[in-house]
């Protein structure tokens, strides 16, 4: 019975805060920080109620057992009545570059085990810019099938009719608070009068945009390399076809000649042994790259939309001033 997850409910301020805190403390630079999401499934929504972080892989901790850490955590949490059902995992990302093979594999193993699991991607840099960037993704059922077969050849992918748009589907996130937390919020409102920081309205955004574009260009380069590989493959195949054809024709001619001379015809040799077909390039990687490029483009478009709005505002302010 397939339960399709319609949305993700983050109940508990603390999930989000913990994720943010974890990134703040652990991950600086391009490292990713990861952790586990706990919660339960309610009808068609996935409710996430708690989370805990995963320690980084350090070289001097070679015998560190991840599984054991997880089991211990979950056991302990059960004691204090925290939902200990694994429902997904989260990861931080650097400028939105998260569509990688590793992610795919992890998410696949999660989703295979638990039908509705999601991966929460938290983008700290975008959040620092002023808007919280937290997205939940799952693999589409089609991709799940393909992964199950472990068959990433082009034929299988074509059969599944998978395009890069159909790899991940985004699940809408909703945040819900309990009453007591609401009370807490009201308290804090009174007590902590910290000045608002309007990062979002800052017009100086070219740095961010530049970095995004840089990453996009890198990916496009990879993509073009991939395309070149694919082209060579196509060319090789067609050349090989020609060669096969020629060989066959020659054979036939020879056979006719021999027949006319009365000699036994040469045996038909196995063509496939003579002409080994070239290896088709792995399609999965290019799919991933395409997906990544797509994400970058989306991000950039969002960003530019915001900036345009801000610029028009600045213009209005100036006009009024003059």
């Amino acid at each position, binding site marked *: 019975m397939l339960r399709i997850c319609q949305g993700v409910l983050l109940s508990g301020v603390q999930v989000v805060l913990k994720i943010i805190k974890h990134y703040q403390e652990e991950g600086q630079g391009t490292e990713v920080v990861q952790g586990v999401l706990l919660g339960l499934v309610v009808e068609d929504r996935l409710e996430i109620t708690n989370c805990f972080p995963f320690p980084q892989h350090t070289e001097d901790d070679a015998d560190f057992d991840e599984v054991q850490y997880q089991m211990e955590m979950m056991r302990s949490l059960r004691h204090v009545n925290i939902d200990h059902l694994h429902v997904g995992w989260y990861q931080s990302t650097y400028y939105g570059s998260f569509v990688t093979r590793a992610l795919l594999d992890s998410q696949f193993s999660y989703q295979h085990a638990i039908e509705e699991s999601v991966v929460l991607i938290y983008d700290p840099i975008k959040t620092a810019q002023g808007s919280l960037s937290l997205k939940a993704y799952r693999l589409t059922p089609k991709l799940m099938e393909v992964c199950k077969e472990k068959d990433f050849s082009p034929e299988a992918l074509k059969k599944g009719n998978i395009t890069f748009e159909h790899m991940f589907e985004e699940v809408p996130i909703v945040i819900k608070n309990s009453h007591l937390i609401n009370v807490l919020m009201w308290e804090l409102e009174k007590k902590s009068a910290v000045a608002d920081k309007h990062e979002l309205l800052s017009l100086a955004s070219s740095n961010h945009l530049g970095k995004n*574009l840089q990453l996009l260009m890198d990916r496009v380069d990879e993509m073009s390399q991939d395309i070149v590989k694919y082209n060579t493959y196509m060319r090789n195949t067609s050349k090989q076809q020609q060669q096969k054809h020629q060989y066959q024709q020659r054979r036939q001619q020879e056979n006719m000649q021999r027949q006319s001379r009365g000699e036994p015809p040469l045996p038909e040799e196995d063509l496939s042994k003579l002409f080994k077909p070239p290896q088709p390039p792995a399609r999965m990687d290019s799919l991933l790259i395409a997906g990544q490029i797509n994400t970058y483009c989306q991000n950039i478009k969002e960003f530019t939309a915001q900036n345009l709005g801000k610029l028009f505002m600045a213009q209005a302010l100036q006009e009024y001033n003059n």
Partner: protein
Amino acid sequence: MATPTVPASAPPAAPAPAPASPTAPAPGSAPAAAPVLVPTAAPASSSDPAAAATATAAPGQPPTSAPAPAQTPAQSLPGPALPGHFPGGRVVRLHLVILASIVDSYERRNEGAAHVIGTLLGTVDKHSVEVTNCFSVPHNESEDEVAVDMEFAKNMYELHKKVSPNELIQGWYATGHDITEHSVLIHEYYSREAPNLIHLTVDTSLQNGRMSVKAYVSTLMGVSGRTMGVMFTPLTVKYAYYDTERIRVDLIMKTRFSPNRVIGLLSDLRQVGGVLARIEDALSTVLQYAEDVLSGKVSADNTVGCFLMSLVNQVPKIVPDDFETMLNSNINDLLMVTYLANLTQSQIALNEKLVNL
């Protein structure tokens, strides 16, 4: 003999008792010693040897007074100016995560449990103690006794240390609005783990219609040579945020206003709209104030006037032509980038189609 040797059993008050002099300026604020509850029936006041300002406790308590004054006076002063045993000074900086976690674990408590307790983790720097993480610990409480699962606490602490090795045990928390005898016992349990503990109470039962958050440090009091009692002295609590946390908090605060406490994450332009709305509110308040002053309802305040002046002057005065060029070039940049992004997307879509032929 102003500096007695405090019996080793009591943790926080042990270290080098501060010389009596620095406490001299502090006692001025000592009158605020009130809200401290003491399990032992001794008078709940801060005793102060040097200047027995409010001390209803007789100066005949020199043994405890030496450790005590360094801690008790400056409750209202977030002053790092105090030397001595509590290296963190008077301020506890709490992150929002802690409160959210505490409330959450309170909501999930076992049937029949009146409140929950747990450990606080964090770091100390010279001005304050920063509490950044916490986890709850199961415990059983009955009329006479309290059982805390310390094994569990230790295990959890080890696990947490693996992720963030900088965090040390800073104290413990309890829900409920007062300090009880059990607190002392629990405090003692914890003091075996770490020195200088902080005790945090979060009033989830909403006494006085508010959820108050208070922090305490324990000190000894009593007469030396006899049983020592423990007194909890309050500390100032401040809230600390990381920048990214602040943005989150703003978003979450919005859930207060929606009927079923639900809020979705906004998409790009709407976020800008949201922030703008807030600025609009702020501006209208300012305008209202200005009008009030003009119509004489409110007396004019010079400092506010200065601020308003600088506010208005912050819109930069640029020659219109220059501004036009700047604006246009920026818009051009953005449009070009959008165009390129769209182009790239259509390119890869096309590529897909071709490859799948």
